[in-house]
């Protein structure tokens, strides 16, 4: 995907390495990757291949052992205020919604806004707007425990959008949902990406999901094996299964 040379680079990763358990598990084994602003990229690969680790690096939830990583103008290896970066630039959507059970849907969406110095009134206003976008405005004041799985994930998406992020990082966002609900969640994410021009990076192990993206990146054993050729990937996965 090389549509438009005016795009600026939002992700720039060079030879990124990360190991766990004293180097015994090489979760990332030399990853280099560029992503343009406004792109929709999917990251696919089998379980344990390092997809989540890569996504966590992008969102500065984890720090690499070596290599360089720049995201949205932040050098994530040098920067100390990573929480500010996360709060301002990143919206996470996890496989499990991770909503707080004892506060309302609306208040859950407000959680990221505490870093932005908004008044409670403005927080609620913004939260209701976001819930409207994901079609849950009428459920704003009930507890998330009363919602279905798909609805909870929509709340999580609204929460990810709270601070107008530059990038949405979604780690298997439909992994725990049935296929019909999955499609609606993906549709929602893709629409938001198109309307808000937000960069969308989705981790999945489902090729059908991956194919919706502008670009597919396949990860295997902590390395990117093919960042362009979708057909080849599909064949490879068929062979593996």
């Amino acid at each position, binding site marked *: 995907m090389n549509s438009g040379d005016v795009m600026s680079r939002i992700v720039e990763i060079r030879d990124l390495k990360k190991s766990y358990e004293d180097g015994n598990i090489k979760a990332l084994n030399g990853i280099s990757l560029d992503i343009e602003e406004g792109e929709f990229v999917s990251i696919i690969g089998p379980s344990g291949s390092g997809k989540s680790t890569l996504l966590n690096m992008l969102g500065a939830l*984890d720090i690499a052992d070596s290599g360089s990583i720049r995201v949205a103008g932040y050098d994530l290896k040098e920067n100390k205020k990573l*929480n*500010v970066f996360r709060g301002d630039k990143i919206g996470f959507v996890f496989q*499990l919604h*991770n909503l707080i059970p*004892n506060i309302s849907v609306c*208040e859950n969406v407000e*959680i*990221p806004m505490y870093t932005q110095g908004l008044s409670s009134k403005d927080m609620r206003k913004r939260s209701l707007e976001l819930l409207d976008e994901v079609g849950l405005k009428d459920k704003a004041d009930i507890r998330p425990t009363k919602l279905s799985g798909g609805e909870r994930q929509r709340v999580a998406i609204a929460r990810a959008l709270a601070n107008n992020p530059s990038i949405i990082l979604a780690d298997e966002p439909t992994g725990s949902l049935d296929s019909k609900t999955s499609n609606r969640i993906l549709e929602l994410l893709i629409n938001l990406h198109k309307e808000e021009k937000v960069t969308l990076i989705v981790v999945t192990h489902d090729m059908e999901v991956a194919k919706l993206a502008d670009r597919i990146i396949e990860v295997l054993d902590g390395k990117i094996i093919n960042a362009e050729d979708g057909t080849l990937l599909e064949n490879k996965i068929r062979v593996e299964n």
Partner: protein
Amino acid sequence: MSFLSLIIKNPFRNKSRALLAIIGIGIGIATIIALGAITEGMISSADDTLRAGGSDFTVSGKVEGESSQMVGFGTSSFDDDYVDKLANVSGVDRAVPIYMTLLMTKNSPYFAVIGMNPSDYKIAELTITDGRMYKDGTDEIVLGKIAADNEEKEVGDTILLDDKEFDIVGIYESGNSYQDQGGFTSLDNSQKLSDDEGKVSTIYIKVDKDADVETVEKRIDDEYGDNLTTISSLSDLDMVKNMIDMLNGASLAISILAVVIGAVGIINTMLTSVYERTRELGVLKAVGWSDGKILLMIIGESIVITIVAGIIGSIAGIIGVELIVLSNIMPLLTPIYTVNIFVQAFSIALFVGIIGGIYPALKAVKLPPTEALRYE
């Protein structure tokens, strides 16, 4: 929703756990409040009794050794010729002899019989609410309002004190619970009740208008200090002082115990809460919350628990003290709730909240976000 309301809501997610922590700390707070109110009450009622209305200070017999005869507040009786001697000390306006003795009656374990010349009644600041003052050389007595209630007596009745019958001619109120639970009669009658004729237990001193109280006190000390002791405030009385020291010591020990037990309890409560919310803490980190904010939230939640415990403990403490008063286990007890007691209790609650919250909060902060999000 404000950050503060989030902090206030969070501890009550697990209601039974919050309740247990609150009870644990609340018991300590209740004890601190109760002991404080009792101590303050003792200080003030002892002070009232010593000061007895219009007097500037009192003079008592020196207690020689532990075994001396104890009268009233731990002083021994002494010869009544000191009354005239003290009256002649320069600067003394009046020296009022008092003979105080504690009796037991059918209805009350402590009944203070205070002997005083009826002409001196002004210095005791008694208000006769019913009947009249007693006369010298009779078997007349006036009863305090509480005593009259306890004994179910009114003006015109008689009362038996140590097998001797007295005519009740009046009821008074002094505002001092010690005095209101007893009666006033003539000096003579009171001395006879204790087989201690010619003695007094206390002399109230009123100094001349233009005399300096401390100077007069010092003159008496200098001249009669071998046999008498002047008491201008409560702290001059060893027995009362010891008792209050003891109560204060108990209060301190219980405060320390409350802090230790409370802190251990709250650490345990908050640690459990942090572990249970591991994933959620991961989310807070992922959405950009700073370490400071997470620290503040956890310590804040801990403080919310201890402050609620402070409120509930204070109420329980007051109820406990009032139950003691109602049950009459300590008949002379008039608890006093000073602001200071509550300030102390809430400072302890706050302190326990901060101390107990710090370690769990640091645990929450140190949690790597990826591990928190992987946590099952």
